[in-house]
C-alpha cells in the first residue's frame, strides 16, 4: 500500500506538471498579448510604450525563462501579479474562492439530495411509468444548457416577484442572501442531479441483480429493507466516485452560471482573465482547478482501494 501511495502521488505531480506546460504553451499561442489588451482601453497602441511594458512585465524574456519564473515562484508560494490590476495573484484569487466554493457546495448538496433518492426509486420501480418519467426528466436535465436555465430562472423570478436578488456590496437581508446562493446553485446542481440520478439508478440495478440480494429476498426479508439496507449501501461506491468527480467538474457549470447571475466567483474570473490575457491569473486558476480534480481522483482511488478489496492496487 505504501509503495502504491508513493507511485500514485508521483503520477499526480506528473499530471500537474503536464497541465502547467500545456496551459503555459496554450496561453502563449493566444493571439494578442496582455499589452495589447492594456492598450485597448486607451484606444491606441504605441510601440515604444508597448516594448517598455513588455519588459516591465517580463514578457521579453524567453519562454523557458518565463515558465521557470512561474514554476519557481509557485514552489516558493509566490503566484505572481495580475497584469491588469497589478495586485498579487493571490489577492485576486483568494477572496473569490469562498464565493465559488459556497456555490459549488450548495449545488452538490442539491444534486445529491435530488439525484440519489430519485435514482433509487427509479431503479426499484424499473420499467414502471414512474421510472420512465424520471428517466426522461434526468435526460432532459442533461440536455438543458445551464446558462439557458439560468436565464429562464431569472426571467421567471422577475415575472413572479418583480425582482431578482443580484450581487451588490450592500448588506443583504437573510432571505436575499439565501436566494443569492440557492437559486444559482439549483441551476448548476440540476445537471449534476440528473447525472447522479442516472448513475445511482444503474448502480442500484446492478446490485439488485446480484445473488446476495436475491438470497435476501428469498429468505423473506422485507423488500424495502433489502432495497435500502443492502442494495443502496453497495451501490453507493460508484455513486460516491461520480459525486467526487462531479465536485471538481462543477467548474464547467459554474463558468456560465456565475456569468449569468453576475456572481463574483472564480469561474467567471477565469473567463474574464482569459479575455484579458492575464496570464498569471489564468495559469494559476487552471492549476488550481487541475489540482482539485487530481486530488479528488486521488482520494477516490484511495477510497476504492480501501473499501473494495477486489480492486487490484496498481494497474
Amino acid at each position: 500500500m505504501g509503495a502504491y501511495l508513493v507511485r500514485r502521488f508521483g503520477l499526480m505531480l506528473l499530471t500537474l506538471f503536464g497541465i502547467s506546460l500545456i496551459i503555459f504553451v496554450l496561453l502563449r499561442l493566444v493571439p494578442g498579448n496582455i499589452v495589447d489588451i492594456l492598450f485597448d482601453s486607451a484606444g491606441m497602441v504605441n510601440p515604444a510604450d508597448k516594448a517598455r511594458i513588455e519588459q516591465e512585465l517580463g514578457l521579453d524574456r524567453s519562454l523557458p525563462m518565463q515558465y521557470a519564473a512561474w514554476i519557481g515562484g509557485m514552489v516558493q508560494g509566490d503566484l505572481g501579479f495580475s497584469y491588469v490590476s497589478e495586485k498579487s495573484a493571490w489577492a485576486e484569487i483568494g477572496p473569490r474562492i469562498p464565493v465559488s466554493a459556497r456555490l459549488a457546495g450548495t449545488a452538490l448538496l442539491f444534486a445529491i439530495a435530488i439525484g440519489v433518492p430519485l435514482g433509487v426509486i427509479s431503479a426499484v420501480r424499473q420499467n414502471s411509468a414512474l421510472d420512465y418519467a424520471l428517466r426522461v426528466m434526468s435526460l432532459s436535465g442533461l440536455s438543458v444548457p445551464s446558462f439557458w436555465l439560468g436565464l429562464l430562472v431569472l426571467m421567471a423570478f422577475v415575472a413572479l416577484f418583480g425582482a431578482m436578488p443580484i450581487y451588490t456590496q450592500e448588506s443583504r437581508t437573510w432571505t436575499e442572501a439565501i436566494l443569492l446562493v440557492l437559486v444559482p446553485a439549483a441551476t448548476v446542481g440540476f445537471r449534476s442531479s440528473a447525472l447522479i440520478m442516472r448513475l445511482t439508478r444503474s448502480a442500484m440495478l446492478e446490485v439488485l441483480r446480484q445473488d446476495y440480494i436475491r438470497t435476501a429476498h428469498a429468505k423473506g426479508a422485507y423488500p424495502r429493507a433489502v432495497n435500502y439496507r443492502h442494495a443502496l449501501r453497495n451501490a453507493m461506491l460508484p455513486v460516491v466516485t461520480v459525486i467526487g468527480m462531479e465536485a471538481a467538474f462543477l467548474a464547467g457549470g459554474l463558468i456560465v452560471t456565475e456569468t449569468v447571475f453576475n456572481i463574483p466567483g472564480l469561474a467567471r474570473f477565469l473567463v474574464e482573465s482569459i479575455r484579458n490575457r492575464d496570464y498569471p491569473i489564468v495559469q494559476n486558476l487552471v492549476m488550481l482547478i487541475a489540482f482539485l480534480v487530481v486530488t479528488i481522483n486521488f482520494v477516490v482511488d484511495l477510497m476504492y482501494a480501501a473499501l473494495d478489496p477486489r480492486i487490484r492496487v496498481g494497474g
Partner: protein
Amino acid sequence: MKRWLSLSLATAILATAAAAGAQTPKQGGIMRAWQRDSPGSASIHEEATYSTNFPFMGVFSNLVIYKQDVAQNSMDSIVPELAASWQWSADNKDLTFKTRPGVKWHDGKPFTANDVKCTFDKVRDLTQDKFRKNPRKAWFSTVRDITVQGDNEVTFHLERPQPALLALLASGYAPIYPCHTSAQVQRTAPIGTGPFKFVSFKQNESITLARNPDYWKPGRPYLDGIEYTIVTNRSTAVLGFIAGKFDMTFPLEITPPILRDIKAQAPGAQCFTAPLNVSTNLIVNRDKPPFDNADVRRAMALTMDRKAFVDILSEGEADIGGTMLPGPEGVWGMSKEMLATMTGYGPDIAANRAQARKIMADLGYGPNKMLKVKISTRNIATYRDPAVILIDHLKEIFIEGELDVVETSVWFAKLARKDYAVGLNLTGNAVDDPDQAFYENYSCGSERNVTGYCNKELEKAFDAQSQETDPAKRKAMVWEIDRKLQNDVARPIILHDRKATCTGPALKGYTQMVNSVYNGYRFDELWLNR
C-alpha cells in the same frame, strides 16, 4: 481676450440649488451605481473609455471643469476648480492659472501649482516615471512649456494661440495628479483632491469611494460614499435598477426598448436620453486595392442607408451627422441643409445606390462578379451589430462582405498594422470641440488616428480654425473641414448614437450632459433624499 475670468463659488452653489428644484440637499447616504464593466485601471489619464471616468472622476479635481449642472458643454460653461482664476496673455500664447490655496491631497500632503506641472509634463511624456499608455498626449502638442511661479501660479506656454486648450483642460480627462505618487499608484489606488477618496477596486466586482472630509469645496460632497457594482450583463443590471438596488444606471447605456421597460416597471425613475458624442463610422484602408480607388470608396459611402442604421440600432433615436456632433446638443455640428449635400447623405437612397452600382459596374463588378471583402470589427455588440447591417447594404452594390470578428485584444494592434481592408469602428469625442476631434482622429501621425488618414492641406485648415478666436468664423471653418472629410470618405460617419441614463427616485442633483459622456461625474453636488 484679455480678461480675468473669476466665478465666485457662491454663485455656483446658488445655481446648483436652483437646478435641484429648490429642495434643500440632505447630507449623507451611500449612492449605489451600476458600472458596466471593469475599467482597465483607475488612472483616468491612461484610459480612453468613460468606464474609467464614471467611477473615478470623483476622486480628482481639475484646474477647470465643465460646470456639472449645465447640460451642454461649451466655453461659457467652464468653471474653476483647483484654479481659482485664469488669464490669457495679450498674444493669446500663454495661459496662466492662479491655483487655489490650502487644498490637500487625500494623503494629507498640500497641493501646489507644481502638481499641475507634474501632471501635464507626464501627459506630455517628459517625466522619468511614465504612464503605461498615454492616449491623449496629442491634446497638448501645442504646449511648449509649463512653468511654475511660486506655489500658487502656473503658466502653459503655447507654440501658437489655441483658445480650445481651456476646453481640453475642462474635460473629465484632465484631472490633476500629485507629484509625489507614481503612475502605478494612480492606476491601482489613486490619490486626488476630489470630493471622494478611493477605498477599493475589485476587478470585475466593485469600486468603492468614500467621502473626503477635507474637500476644498466647503460642505461638499453631500454623499458619504459611492458604491459602483460591476455588472456586465445589461439585463441583470437593469433588473437590479428596477428592484431598487441601484440609484443610478451606467450613464447613457440604456437602449430604447429597455428604456420603455424601465419606465413601465419603475415609475419613480427619472431617465434622460442624450447623445454620447460617440460616432459609429466606417474605416477603409486606402492602401489596399481596390480600396485605393477613390471611386470604390465613394460607392461605399453612397450605398449606406444611414436612416436604416438609425432605425435598427436605436429605434430612430440616433442622429445623422458629420465628424462633429449634430445640433442642438452639439455646438459644432453642420446644418441639416449642408449635411444633405454630402456624399451618401442625400435622402434618395435608391438614387444613391443606382449611382453607386454604376460606379461598381464600370469597374467591372456585377451580380455575377461580386467584390469579396472582409469587414473587420471588434467582438463587441455595439461594433458587430452595425457591421452586420453594413454587410447588408454593401450587398446592394456588388460587394460581398464577410464579417471578420476581431478579438478586442488585437483590434487596435490590427488597425495600427493596417491589417484590414474595411472595418467598422466607434470613435468617442471627449470634448465637443473641433481641436479634440480633428487632431486626435484625422491629423497625420496622431496615435488615435487609426486609419492613418493624412491630408496636409486639411491639416493647415485644422490649425487655422484652432487659432480663430471668433466663434462664428471658426464654426464656418469647421463646417468646411467636416464637409471635406466626409466627401473624401476619410472615415464616413454613419451615426451618432443616443442612449439614456436613469436615476432612482432618491437621487437628486444629477445632470446628464448632452454633448459629451466623459465629463459629468464629479458628483460633489449629488445627494440622496432617503
